[in-house]
């Protein structure tokens, strides 16, 4: 096999190497899925229980600001330390481009908060698969802004698949959603706001990993979200102080928080940092989004005890297939799509 490699022209070898890297990025983006399912599935379960149920949507705010993000920042910080990239994290501040960190973290905060609010209203089993569409929104935004061609017959077939999938998932809403009627509708609207925000965020992360040393950028994105979320919450939601007291004195909740935050961090590192940096915002983003959020629905109706609904599984599987159609393309195209 090695002699075959040498005989190939250099440009061909270079192209194959680039294509292989893109494929590796796509695989990492998919592997990140179960970590997010574990994390946000648990978040969706906890958000409707005390102390977060004291007041909504403050409870959703508190679970993001007190559990998800602090442990996420810690997890990504450990990644920086282990990978030796912590030096670059400080160095990327001070350039005009570093304002992008703030922009991305505000977008991420709004998306995360909307997800938690929606999970309180319609549950993770429903909010997860719908939220996962952010990958597709992000792919469309990225493809327009990066002039990356994604409009092929397979993209259209994939989008139709996603539409059918989401329709089937929504039909399972009656079984899995904790609320009905107007609350369910509001929950769906809020998750749509989340997926649009995250969709833009997906592009913003893609651009950020291009503009800055990616590891440090990801850490600042989480750290600034931590600051913004906690300042806003403690300043404007007095009930959150009671919730914070209860959370930080309950070892069980802190442990749950570690699962949520570290799982989220693993997904950010594998899906966003490696997946998007290697495979680009379109392929990495679609896969990290769709697979991650499928697993939220999947774990919610299996391990986290939400009533089982075949519609969620079937709908998610159809969405899966749709997403695969969007990102699938002949190997020859994979290498040189951007630029």
């Amino acid at each position, binding site marked *: 096999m*090695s002699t075959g*490699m*040498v005989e190939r022209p*250099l*440009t061909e*070898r*270079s192209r194959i*190497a*680039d294509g292989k*890297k893109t494929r590796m990025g796509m695989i990492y983006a998919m592997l990140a899925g179960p970590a997010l399912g574990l994390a946000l599935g648990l978040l969706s379960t906890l958000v409707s229980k005390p102390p977060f149920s004291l007041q909504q949507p403050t409870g959703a705010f508190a679970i993001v600001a007190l559990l998800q993000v602090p442990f996420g920042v810690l997890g990504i910080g450990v990644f920086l330390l282990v990978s*030796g*990239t912590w*030096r*670059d994290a*400080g*160095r*990327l501040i*001070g*350039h*005009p*481009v570093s304002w992008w960190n703030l922009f991305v973290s505000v977008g991420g905060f709004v998306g995360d908060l909307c997800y938690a609010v929606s999970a309180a209203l319609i549950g993770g089993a429903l909010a997860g698969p719908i939220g996962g569409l952010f990958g597709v929104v992000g792919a469309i935004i990225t493809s327009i802004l*990066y002039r990356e061609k994604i409009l092929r017959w397979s993209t259209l077939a994939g989008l139709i698949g996603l539409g059918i999938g989401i329709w089937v998932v929504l039909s399972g809403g009656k079984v899995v959603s904790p609320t009905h009627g107007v609350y369910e509708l509001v929950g769906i609207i809020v998750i749509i706001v989340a997926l649009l925000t995250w969709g833009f965020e997906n592009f913003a992360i893609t651009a950020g*990993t*291009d*503009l*800055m*040393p*990616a590891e*440090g950028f990801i850490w600042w994105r989480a750290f600034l979200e931590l600051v913004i979320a906690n300042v806003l919450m403690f300043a404007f939601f007095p009930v959150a102080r009671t919730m914070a007291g209860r959370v930080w004195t309950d070892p069980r909740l802190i442990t749950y928080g570690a699962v949520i935050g570290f799982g989220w961090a693993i997904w950010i590192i594998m899906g966003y940092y490696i997946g998007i*940096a*290697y495979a*680009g915002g379109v392929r990495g983003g679609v896969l990290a989004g769709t697979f991650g959020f499928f697993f939220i629905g999947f774990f919610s109706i299996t391990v986290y005890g939400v009533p089982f609904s075949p519609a969620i599984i079937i709908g998610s599987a159809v969405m899966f297939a749709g997403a695969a159609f969007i990102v699938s393309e002949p190997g020859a195209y994979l290498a040189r799509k*951007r*630029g």
Partner: protein
Amino acid sequence: MKPAVKYAAVGVLYAAGPEGIWEHEIYGELRSRYPRSALQPLREDLVSMRTVGWLRILQESDHHGQLLRKYALADHIRPFVRYQLHIDDVVAFLPGAGGRPAAGAGERRI
């Protein structure tokens, strides 16, 4: 403070101008400023910048089975990095800062 390794690499490429520079030469330029461990992701950074169109590959060669590439910073990105990354400060930090009139000339050409 030292610039991030990625920005220092952009600085080397910026100073090299349209003639470009081999990746091992970029490594050589940065070697005196950064510990070896900090330069390990350099190749990865270059490939990523190539993927998003910041860099053009001018030449490729085979060295003991390893693929080596000669990169040049794309013309359209030069004004952008000059402002956004304070690239003049980065170039001044690099060891060969004194003898590089080509950088300014390349900028004016655009």
